[in-house]
Structures are given as structure tokens and as C-alpha cells.
């Protein structure tokens, strides 16, 4: 069953893909969007159960390498990582786009904050982001679409400690409804954001963007696994080759293709799409596909209190602190980080954050489960050409496609930044009255960025400022891969804003692009 040719074929229907599908379909284009994973029905498929969520979500087989191998989390599903994410929706700061100019490291983005600002506005309105304008470190901006959420006890205790130190704790801007919005229920503080939101209060893209895309005629195809893109003699992409839900190989033709599989699977698909014209993989004349892999430096600190806090109740990620977001030369490193409250179920703590200990040490920690406040530290990871996503030379998946291999080592700046973030988190805990602090060395990330970066110079970047491949005119790459720097925050809102901007460009330029 070969599908008829469409205007736009989107590969990967997550944070970016679902946004692209909606915006392109609303712009009058015929759209088909594929995703490797299933399409979940929150009421039927999700449960308040961390073990169940681990089983349905974490299936990616990735080979880890480098001095600091980092465990990669991704959700294979329509909605992608937004099904599982904390929904912290931060805008990048103006400085984030100009790291080379300001700090002499990394690169500048070829776009500025002003280029993205209207798209941030649009995405926030579509998602129904709840937040407050009291953050002194936020970019100058209008009001959030919805008022902020109330803080749970964990966030309250951390806010108290941070204020004592003169810091500025503020409610996190969250793509989680604090009021009924767009036909969905508000959050009832059940505490299970990471397990898939049963209430549909969390604005994952499968709930917000996909129905709107379908209302405008887009076709969504779950459980289709991409193998490669085929090019014609003129060097344009002609077809997307995939295995459908019944295990049969299929071809999808389109006038324009957008790869949006995340910063690990996007380079994997491109590198696996070799041809006579493009022997080192598609869109890779620069040799930079798969290079400059970034995440956010991760650390977590638990503060043990004498009284119960019950941090598992309510929104775990209610509060952020951005006092250390911008560069301060006195700290001995450049760029910075965001502190975010968090908590998790006992298995996630015991197997993830405390996965390095067992026996008495593990049980001593776990006996205090109800007594911890916790901070998650998300820092800027500077781009390094040696941090890469490549095709594993030996290991293959069940369809014969090479597994992705992620090679990662922290640089000196990341190590200093991370150490500083841990010190500050410990200070906040002590100021709040913690009797002891415990750091977690756990290394895991779902913030995948930087393997097809954007730029104006085709020899130093993979896509142009509109996420169009320098090499192949009818190929766009639009997800965290195109990020030039990682920033000290969370990437999703910027991925969504970039996708909106890219779709706008495609719709506006359709006369030129869709020929």
C-alpha cells in the first residue's frame, strides 16, 4: 500500500513533529506524520504507577560511550518526550543566542531571541502555559496565558531556603493547565507528570497539536519505524522508507520532508541514508551530522529534614531558581544553570538517583523517603565536536538498522558548573533547615540537542536559520538537533517555537519549496 504523494512528510511526531503537522496543515498543505511509537489514550493507557510507566516508556536501545557515558531517555510515542516531560516551558534568554560574542566559547546562533519571540508567544498560548511574571531573570515578556500553580510542600520549603540566601525562587512556567483551557481539565496535583498525565492537564503535543493537525486533514501514522530517506538523481529527497505497523516495508512520497526524530534518532536516520550522491549520509557535506551532541549537565541534591515533607504530593517541578543562569566571571566558568524542584516515586529514586548504592546505604536513604526536599540542576553543556551520535559499527536493531552510539565526555566548564550548582543547592537546603544533604551522581538525560546544528556557513553547519538542509533543498531538520548551544534551562519550548517558525516559513514559501 503506497501512500499517495503528499506535500509534507514529517518523520517523528513529538515536541517538534506534532507542531509542524498542525502548522503546515493549517497552512493548507497536505501532511502525513509518522512516529515509531504508539498513540496513547491517557485515560486508558496511563496509570499513576511509576513502574508501569518505566515499562511502557523506556525502550530505546542506545550504545553509550565516552568518558562520561550518559543514559538517554526518550519516549517513543506520538507526542514523543512531551508525554513524559516535566512540562517546564522556559524561553531562552537573549544571551543564549550569542554565547560566542559574549563568552568567547561555542558559537552564536544565526537567529536572535527577537526572531523567536512571536513564536514563543504562539506556542505558549496553544499549550496554555501557566506562569508568573515575577521572575527577575526572565526575558521581558507579556503575561502568561494562565496563572501559576500553587506550590507543593517541597517547593515551599525550598523557596524558604532560597529566600534566606537572597535568591529569587519563582513558580516554574509549566505547560500544565492551572485552569480549564481549550476543552481540557486543569491539574489536580496528583504528582504523576512523568508517568503520562491521566487528567490530560499536561499539554503534551499529542493532546494539544495532533487533534488540531487532524482537524485540518493531517494524517498521523503511529508505529511506523523509519529506515532511510531516498534521493532522486537531482539530489532531492524522493521517498521515506519505513516499516509499517504490520511489519511491511513501505515508501512514502512527498514534495518536502522534515526529519524531527530528536537529536539522537535524527542523525541516525540521516547517516543511515547513504547514496551515490551522498556517500557520507544525507545533509552531511559538512561532516557535522551527529557532531556537537549536547544535553544539560545534570545533578540532583536531596535535603533531609527532621519533619516530613511528603514531596511526592503535587506537582514535583513547581519552582525554579534562575539566579545562576547568566555568566558571572567570578564563578570560574561561563554560562549557568536553572535549579528546579523535583521529586519522584521510590523506584525512580532507588534505581535512578541512588542507583549507585545498595544494602544499608540504600535503605538508610530510602527510610527517609517522606523527609526529603529535592532540587534538580539543569546546566549549560557547551558544544564539543568530540561528543557525537554515530552509527554503531556492529549492533543493529530488529530491522537491521545500526543502533545509535552516543559518545559523551564532560568538559572542564561543565564539571565546574555542575560542582557550583551542587554547592548552591546544598546551601539552599541547609538554609531551609536540612539536617543533611545527599547528592546524586546519576547521569541521565532526556534533553537531546545539537547534532545537526544551524548556521549560515554550509561548511560549519547542517541547516540554515529556517532549519532547511544546506545540501538538500526539500529536506528540513527540525528538533533539538538544530540547537547551536544547549542553555541552562529546558529545551522543549524552544523546540516548539522553532518548529512553529519553520512551518510558517514552509507555508509562506510553498510556491518555491513545493515543486
Amino acid at each position, binding site marked *: 500500500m503506497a501512500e499517495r504523494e503528499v506535500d509534507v512528510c514529517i518523520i517523528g511526531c513529538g515536541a517538534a513533529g506534532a507542531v509542524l503537522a498542525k502548522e503546515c496543515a493549517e497552512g493548507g498543505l497536505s501532511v502525513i506524520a509518522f512516529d515509531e511509537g504508539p498513540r496513547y489514550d491517557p485515560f486508558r493507557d496511563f*496509570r*499513576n*504507577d511509576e*513502574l508501569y510507566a518505566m515499562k511502557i516508556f523506556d525502550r530505546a536501545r542506545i550504545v553509550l560511550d565516552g568518558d562520561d557515558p550518559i543514559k538517554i531517555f526518550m519516549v517513543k510515542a506520538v507526542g514523543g518526550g512531551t508525554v513524559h516531560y516535566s512540562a517546564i516551558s522556559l524561553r531562552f534568554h537573549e544571551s543564549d543566542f550569542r554565547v560566542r560574542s559574549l563568552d568567547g566559547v561555542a558559537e552564536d546562533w544565526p537567529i536572535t531571541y527577537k526572531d523567536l519571540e512571536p513564536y514563543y508567544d504562539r506556542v505558549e498560548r496553544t499549550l496554555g502555559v501557566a506562569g508568573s511574571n515575577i521572575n527577575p531573570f526572565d526575558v521581558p515578556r507579556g503575561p502568561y496565558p494562565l496563572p501559576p500553580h*500553587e*506550590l*507543593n*510542600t517541597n517547593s*515551599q520549603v525550598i523557596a524558604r531556603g532560597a529566600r534566606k540566601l537572597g535568591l529569587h525562587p519563582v513558580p516554574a512556567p509549566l505547560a500544565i493547565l492551572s485552569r480549564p483551557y481549550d476543552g481540557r481539565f486543569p*491539574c*489536580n*496535583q*496528583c*504528582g*504523576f507528570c512523568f508517568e503520562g498525565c*491521566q*487528567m490530560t492537564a499536561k499539554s503534551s503535543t499529542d493532546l494539544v497539536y495532533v487533534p488540531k493537525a487532524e482537524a485540518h486533514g493531517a494524517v498521523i501514522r503511529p508505529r511506523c519505524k523509519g529506515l532511510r530517506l531516498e534521493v532522486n538523481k537531482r539530489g532531492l529527497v524522493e521517498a521515506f522508507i519505513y516499516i509499517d505497523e504490520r511489519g511491511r516495508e513501505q515508501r512514502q512520497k512527498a514534495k518536502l520532508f522534515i526529519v524531527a526524530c530528536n537529536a539522537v534518532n535524527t542523525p541516525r536516520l540521516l547517516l543511515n541514508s547513504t547514496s551515490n550522491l551522498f556517500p557520507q549520509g544525507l545533509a552531511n557535506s559538512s561532516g557535522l551530522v551527529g557532531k556537537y551532541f549536547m544535553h544539560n549537565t545534570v545533578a540532583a541534591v536531596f535535603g533531609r529534614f527532621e*519533619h*516530613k*515533607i*511528603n514531596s*511526592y*504530593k*503535587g*506537582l514535583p517541578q513547581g519552582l525554579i531558581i534562575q539566579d545562576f543562569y547568566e555568566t558571572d566571571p567570578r564563578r570560574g566558568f561561563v554560562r549557568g544553570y536553572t535549579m528546579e524542584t523535583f521529586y519522584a*516515586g*521510590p*523506584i525512580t529514586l*532507588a*534505581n535512578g538517583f541512588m542507583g549507585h548504592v*545498595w*544494602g*544499608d546505604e*540504600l*535503605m538508610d536513604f*530510602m*527510610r527517609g*523517603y*517522606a523527609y526529603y526536599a529535592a532540587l534538580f540542576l539543569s546546566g549549560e553543556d557547551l558544544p564539543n565536536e568530540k561528543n557525537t551520535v554515530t552509527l554503531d559499527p556492529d549492533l543493529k536493531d530488529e530491522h537491521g538498522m545500526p543502533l545509535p552510539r552516543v559518545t559523551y565526555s564532560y568538559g572542564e566548564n561543565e564539571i565546574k558548573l555542575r560542582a557550583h550548582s551542587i554547592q548552591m543547592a546544598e546551601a539552599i537546603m541547609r538554609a531551609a533547615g536540612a539536617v543533611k544533604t545527599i547528592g546524586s551522581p546519576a547521569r541521565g538525560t532526556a534533553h537531546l540537542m545539537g547534532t545537526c546544528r544551524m548556521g549560515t556557513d554550509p561548511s560549519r553547519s547542517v541547516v540554515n536559520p529556517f532549519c532547511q538542509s544546506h545540501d538538500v533543498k526539500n529536506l528540513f531538520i527540525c528538533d533539538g538537533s538544530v540547537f547551536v548551544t544547549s542553555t541552562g534551562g529546558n529545551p522543549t519550548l524552544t523546540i516548539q517555537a522553532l518548529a512553529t517558525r519553520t512551518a510558517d516559513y514552509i507555508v509562506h514559501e510553498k510556491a518555491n519549496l513545493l515543486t
Partner: protein
Amino acid sequence: MNLKLTRRAFIQLAGAGSTGLLLTRVELASARASAPSRIFSGHQARTVLAAAEVIIPTRENEPSVVDVNVLDYIDREIRGSSERALFVEGLAGLDRLAGLLGRGPRRFADLPAAQRIAILKMVEAGTLPVDAWPSGSGPLFFRQLRRRIVEGYFSSPLVWKFIGYGGRSQFIGYPDFNRWPQQ
């Protein structure tokens, strides 16, 4: 990276974790593994529990790995998966290491806790005599064993009550999320 040890060095390392090599047969054993396993022999099941008891050591008034039936969880999880082979190989490996420790046949499940801990630490780190674990799967086995035991234990409502976790909260949520708990 696997550190290769000589047999002698291994015995010294393992012995260091206990009160020396004077092994006295203590407690446990018979009380364990009452419910039959569908994928493990009686002895294998006993070995899993002997490891679980030192990975999740509990006090008298706390639910133990036996109370929450961790073995049954592992049974259900790894039945019919390739993980079972890893477990079977690993459990035999634990016995081989236990056998190296003293004279005569000796099995992991018969060792006192301190020696079981010492053996598991070496399996975790991969610092094993080559001939005791030829496939080199020790660290992977330990990771999976630890992971499954933790999953089985901390998914039990009995344990949730013990550590003060509320568990499932839909479709009411936690209405008291912003109020300080009664001490």
C-alpha cells in the same frame, strides 16, 4: 573494565568483608522461598533471596523482601525473556564464587551476610577470577538483579506504607499537596 584477579587474591578480598574465613552456618536458608518459583529451581530461588536480603536489608519491624514476595515479582518479570538466562548463569556464578571461599562444597545462599555482600561487591565491580565467571556478564547480572529486586520491593503497597509514600492518587489527586503533614 574487568579487573582480573587471581583466585588467591579473590579469597582474600571476599574474606575481608566478613569476620575472616571462619564460616559459621547461620540463620536464614530454611525460612526462605516458601512459594515455588515458576522459572527458578528451589535452590536458585533461595539464591535470589539470599542476594535480595543483603541488597535490601530490613529491620525487624520493616517489611522484608520475603514479606513482599520479591521473588514472585522477578518471576513474572523475566519469565520468557532473555533476562532469565542471564539470571540462571549469574546465580550459578554466585555459587561458584562461594565455592572458592572455603573447603568443601559451599553455596552462596549458605554464606553469612557479610560474605554475600563481599561477593556481590566484586560481581558488581567485575573484579573476579577469570575462571569463576568466563562470560564476563557479572556486572550486567548484578545491575539487573539489583534493579529487579528494587522494583519488586518498592512497588509493594506494604513498603509504600513503611516509607510513607502515598502511591496512586487519581482521580482525586493529592488535595493536601500544599499543606504541611501532621508530624
